[in-house]
């Protein structure tokens, strides 16, 4: 038993060092995933080799020596049957606990994450930083900082996949999904679409540039200065006439949006809903489904008038109102 564990740990350390067997590991969760991966590889090899060598030994030792040979009968052996039912069950239980706890740990973003928005469409990745910088098929992120991506699709299902970070999540139309990572190594890494999405699925790829924080700041401020997402969102907000009802002091026909983000609000139906990205998107696209208590259902839908990118900018604007408020209170 100890021998097995020992050879397992030797195998693990060798495997982790072998570069050509392993994709680049450049995020905070990559090591943990790889450990599980190599433990599974070890289990696979152990059982495959054990079964194969047993079969091989039997094949040689008990090969048919005479054409009319009649081998002895072996009765069923209950302890043996139970053993090879229970031991795999225990191994599976252990693997399940390990894998699930790791998954839950990996999917919970740290609270202070930088947020970046991603829109997938046939066949490109459209990325927007809160500071206003937009990229296509490129994602620049600072090293050592947790980054949370809020993602949606304009058409079919895509999937945002960065192998070096061991992260992957489907990008769905009509919904927001999110994933987070914290890059640990400066470098350039593949970004793939991993859910088949049509003709140029294989061309829907790009690069992730992990930069030192200083380089990242330089990169953000270089190029033509552009308004931040929240600022663009504010322009859209005014252009669409939202500001005429959603007065900041709450005297308008619609509720004030100051500090509304992250708050729990009561709807007309009596239901309580947290105001998050999904809520705001729903309020823009299908406003009558989220009418707040004490307010009339008079807001028209903006479906068709705004695209997914503008919705994300509006969300950024509403969020900025909340953080301004929080900052003001802090002072």
């Amino acid at each position: 038993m100890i021998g097995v564990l020992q050879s397992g740990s030797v195998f693990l350390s060798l495997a982790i060092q072998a570069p050509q067997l392993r994709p680049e590991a450049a995020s905070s969760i990559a090591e943990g995933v790889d450990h599980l991966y190599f433990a599974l590889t070890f289990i696979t090899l152990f059982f495959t080799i054990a079964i194969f060598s047993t079969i091989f030994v039997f094949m040689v030792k008990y090969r048919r020596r005479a054409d009319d040979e009649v081998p002895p009968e072996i009765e069923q052996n209950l302890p043996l049957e139970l053993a090879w039912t229970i031991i795999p069950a225990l191994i599976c239980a252990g693997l399940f606990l390990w894998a699930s706890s790791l998954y839950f740990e990996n999917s919970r973003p740290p609270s202070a994450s930088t947020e970046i928005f991603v829109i997938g469409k046939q066949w490109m990745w459209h990325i927007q930083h809160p500071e206003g910088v937009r990229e296509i098929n490129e994602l620049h992120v600072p090293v050592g900082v947790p980054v949370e991506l809020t993602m949606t699709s304009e058409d079919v299902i895509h999937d945002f996949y960065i192998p070096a970070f061991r992260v992957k999540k489907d990008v769905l139309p009509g919904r927001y999904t999110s994933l987070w990572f914290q890059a640990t190594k400066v470098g350039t890494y593949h970004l793939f679409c991993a859910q088949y999405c049509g003709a140029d699925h294989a061309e829907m790829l790009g690069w992730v540039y992990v930069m030192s924080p200083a380089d990242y700041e330089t990169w953000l401020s270089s190029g033509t200065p552009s308004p931040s997402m929240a600022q663009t969102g504010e322009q859209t907000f005014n252009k669409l006439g939202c500001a005429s009802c959603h007065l900041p002091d709450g005297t308008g026909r619609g509720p004030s949006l100051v500090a509304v983000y992250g708050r729990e609000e009561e709807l007309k139906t009596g239901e309580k809903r947290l105001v998050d990205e999904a809520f705001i998107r729903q309020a823009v696209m299908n406003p009558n489904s989220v009418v707040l208590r004490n307010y009339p259902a008079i807001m028209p839908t903006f479906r068709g008038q705004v695209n997914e990118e503008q919705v994300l900018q509006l969300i950024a604007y509403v969020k900025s109102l909340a953080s301004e408020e929080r900052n003001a209170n802090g002072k």
Partner: protein
Amino acid sequence: MADMAVHNAHPPGFAHQFEDMEQQREAGSLGMWVFLLTEMMFFGGLFATYIVYRALYLPSFEIGSHLLEVKFGALNTAVLIGSSLTMALAIHSAQIGKRGAPVGFLIATMILGATFLFIKFTFEWRHDYIEHLVPGFGFVIRPEWGAPGAHVPMFFCFYFFMTGLHALHMIIGIGILAVLTVMAHRRRFTPDYYSPLEVSGLYWHFVDIIWIFLFPLLYLIGGRYPGGGH
């Protein structure tokens, strides 16, 4: 079941692959039960989809449901239950060997089945079409439905697909009944051989059960009392 009908060409209805009539009868009955199991999963996939969307869009489903006429749904339920009774009586009369009796009961079953379809198509579907409630055929979302109106067409999709699939099963059932009536008329069934009747009866009752669930799920969502479900 088709097998049973065809093998009937041999006088006692006996097929060569079986050992005896008892084995053949049991195989036929079990075969129909297994077939009903697949039917159950077939409708089951549809019911599962319905349940998910009903959970997501309950207010829309309530609006849609309130646009249906309960009186027709309830009447049709009664008609179908009646047809199940006549079907059971048809088998009963063959079991006790009453000559000629299955013919009358089978015809009664067919008439009740046709009545169900008549009510469904002429009073309900035609009315829905006139009221612009058929998705894909000029559906009009009415302003008075408010916000949930957006998903009322989905309710009607389920309504037409589920009742349509059910009606298709009824039509097939009536076809089978017609064949049985001819067989009964030719005195094919005896107390020793009525397997086709029994097996078709199972099918007919199954179609009845589907309707027993469709009626409350489609017509009675959220109650019909004033302001129900709002």
